[in-house]
C-alpha cells in the first residue's frame, strides 16, 4: 500500500511538471497582460517600464525558471487584479465550490441509486422507462440551459428560489459554509441540483446496468437458494458489487465536476473558484489562471489516488501495488 502511494505520488509530480510547462507556455500565447496595467495614455517608454517591471523582457525560458523557483516555494505570484497571492484567492473561494460539488454528489447518489435500483429490478415496467428517459435527458441536455430554465421558472416566474449568491453562511472551523443555514440551503438547492444532473444520470445508468448483471449472477441465485431475505440481498450482496464501478466512475468524475462547476457557478453567480476563473480569464489575470490550473491538476491527481484506495477497499480482488500473493 505505502509503496503504491509513493509510486503514485512520484507519477503525480511528473504530471505536475509536464503541466507547468503546458500551462506556462500556453498562457503566454493568449494575449499580452501589459495592457491591463497600462492606462490608455501610456506611451512606449511607459509600456517598456511595465514590461521590465513584470519581468517580461527576459527570455521566456528564464521566465519559466523564475516561475518554477517560485512555485517550489509555494508562490504562484500575485493576482494582477486583486494584488494578493493567487493561491490565497483560490483557498478563499474553494469552500464555496467544494460545498456545491459535495452537495451535488450527495444528491446524485441519494436520487440516482434508488432510481437505478428501481429501473434494474423491473426493466420493462413503465416506471423504468420514465427513469431511463429522465437519465437520458439529464445526460444530454446542456446544464447551462437547465440552469437557466430553472431560474426562469422557480426564481423569476414563481419567485420560490433565489437565483444568485450563497445566502447566509456560518463559520465552521474557519470556513464559511451555506450548508448549515436555511437561507444557505435555499440558495444551494438549485445550483447543486443542476450540477448533480450529469452525475445522477451516470449513477442511474451504472446502477441499472450493474443490477441487470449482478441480479442474474450465480452468487445472488445461491444467496436466494439459501433463503437470505431479499432486502438483505439487495442492500448488501448486490449493492456491494454495484458500488465498485460507481465509486470508480464518480471518483474520476468528481474532479471534473469541481473543475467544470465553472458553468453552474457563472449561471447562479455562485462565488466559487469556477466563477473566479471566468473573471480571471476575462481580464487575463495570468497568475490567477495559472494557479487555478495547477490547483486543478493537483486536485485530479489526489482524487484519483483516493478513488483507487476506496476501490481497493470495496473490491478485495484488487491489491494495490500489484504484487499479489
Amino acid at each position: 500500500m505505502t509503496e503504491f502511494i509513493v509510486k503514485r505520488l512520484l507519477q503525480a509530480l511528473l504530471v505536475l511538471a509536464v503541466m507547468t510547462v503546458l500551462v506556462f507556455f500556453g498562457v503566454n500565447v493568449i494575449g499580452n497582460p501589459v495592457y491591463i496595467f497600462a492606462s490608455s495614455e501610456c506611451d512606449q517608454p511607459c509600456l517598456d517600464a511595465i514590461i521590465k517591471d513584470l519581468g517580461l523582457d527576459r527570455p521566456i525560458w528564464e521566465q519559466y525558471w523564475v516561475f518554477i523557483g517560485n512555485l517550489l516555494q509555494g508562490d504562484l505570484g500575485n493576482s494582477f487584479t486583486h494584488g494578493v497571492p493567487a493561491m490565497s484567492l483560490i483557498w478563499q473561494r474553494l469552500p464555496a465550490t467544494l460545498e456545491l460539488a459535495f452537495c451535488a454528489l450527495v444528491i446524485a447518489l441519494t436520487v440516482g441509486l434508488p432510481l437505478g435500483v428501481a429501473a434494474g429490478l423491473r426493466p420493462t415496467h413503465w416506471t423504468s422507462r420514465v427513469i431511463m428517459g429522465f437519465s437520458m435527458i439529464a445526460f444530454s441536455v446542456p446544464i447551462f440551459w437547465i440552469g437557466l430554465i430553472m431560474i426562469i421558472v422557480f426564481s423569476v416566474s414563481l419567485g420560490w428560489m433565489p437565483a444568485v449568491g450563497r445566502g447566509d453562511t456560518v463559520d465552521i472551523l474557519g470556513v464559511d459554509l451555506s450548508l448549515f443555514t436555511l437561507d444557505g440551503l435555499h440558495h444551494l438547492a438549485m445550483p447543486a441540483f443542476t450540477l448533480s444532473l450529469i452525475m445522477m444520470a451516470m449513477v442511474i445508468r451504472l446502477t441499472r446496468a450493474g443490477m441487470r448483471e449482478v441480479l442474474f449472477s450465480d452468487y445472488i441465485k445461491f444467496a436466494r437458494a439459501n433463503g437470505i431475505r431479499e432486502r438483505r440481498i439487495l442492500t448488501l450482496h448486490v449493492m456491494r458489487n454495484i458500488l465498485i464501478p460507481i465509486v470508480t466512475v464518480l471518483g474520476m468524475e468528481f474532479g471534473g465536476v469541481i473543475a467544470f462547476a465553472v458553468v453552474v457557478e457563472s449561471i447562479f453567480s455562485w462565488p466559487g473558484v469556477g466563477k473566479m476563473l471566468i473573471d480571471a480569464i476575462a481580464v487575463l489575470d495570468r497568475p490567477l489562471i495559472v494557479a487555478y490550473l495547477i490547483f486543478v491538476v493537483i486536485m485530479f491527481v489526489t482524487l484519483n489516488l483516493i478513488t483507487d484506495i476506496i476501490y481497493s477497499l470495496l473490491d478485495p480482488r484488487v491489491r494495490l501495488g500489484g504484487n499479489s500473493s
Partner: protein
Amino acid sequence: MTAPPVLEVKNLNTSFLLPIGEVRALRDISFDVRRGEILGLVGESGSGKSITGFSINGLLSPPGQVMSGSIRLHGQEITGLTPAAMRQLRGAKIAMVFQDPMMTLNPVLKISLQMGDALRAHARLSEREARARSIAALEEVGIPAPEERLDAFPHQLSGGMRQRVAVAIALLHEPDLVIMDEPTTALDVTIQGQILALVQRLCRERGTALIWITHDLAVVAGIADRILVMYAGRIVEDGTIDELLDTPAHPYTRGLIDSVPTREQRGSRLRQIPGRMPALTDIPEGCTFRPRCSFATDACAAPQEMRSLGTRLVRCCHPLTEVSA
C-alpha cells in the same frame, strides 16, 4: 408407518413465456425422492435438469413459470406458496448447490459474512454463535484451518475449496432435500471424487434426500440409488441404478451408457448418439428421441406415455428389454 416421500413431483410442466410464444421446458415430470435416497438426474445439456431444480425451490427466473403440476415436500403442497413462505423453505428444508464454484460465492464478501447471512436467514444467532457454527460446518466439509478461511474472500480459495464452502453453506440448516446441480463438473477429477464422496457421506449420515444433477452418467453411477434420464424436457427412463445400467430400456439411456469410455473399449472408437437434441421450439410429434433413434418404427410417431416395466418406468413403445438383446 410409511411416511410420505421427502419430495413428490407430479406432472410438473414448466414453460418460458416468451414473446414468440410458450416454450415448454419441462413436460409432465413426475418422480419421488425418499429420505436418505440419492437420485441421479441425467441428461444432456439443455434437457431441463437445472430447470427442474429451480422449479422445485421456486427460483425460476422470469419468464420461466411452473404452469401446472404438483410439488409436495413431506406431503405438503409447495407450488403456489407465497414468496415469503418459499424463502423460509429455501436453505432450511431445500438447499441447492450450483455448477461453477468460481461463480457461486459472492466475490466481494468474506466467507464469514456469506455463511453468517445464510445462518441468520433461518436462526437467531449472535455474532459469536454464527462464527462457531460456521467453523464447525467448514470443518465438517474437510476445510483445513477453517478459522482463517472464514476471514478469506472467495478468490483466495481454490475451486475445490470454494465448492466445499458452498456445500457447507447448503448443509448449514440440515435440509431435508439437497439439489446438487453439476457441482463437480468444473473441478478436476480427483477433487470431483472427493466432493462426491463428501456429499454422499454427509447425506447418508443425516438421512438427507439428494438429487444429483449431471450430464455424465459415470459421475452418479457410483453413488446414486436411482436414476432419472431426461431428454428434451421429459423423463424418458426412471429406474434403480443396477437395472438401468445393466439393462437400459430406453435407446437414449443405452446411448448414454455406450458413450461413457470404458477400459474394454480401449482402442476402439467411442460410440456416440448421432444427431443432437432438438430445440424446445421444434420438438417432434410422438417420441422426442425418434429422429436420433436407430430402433425407431412407425409406431414411434404416436405420443409416448410412461410405461411401467416391473420396477422401472420408460417412455418408449418398444423398450430394449423387450427386444431380444
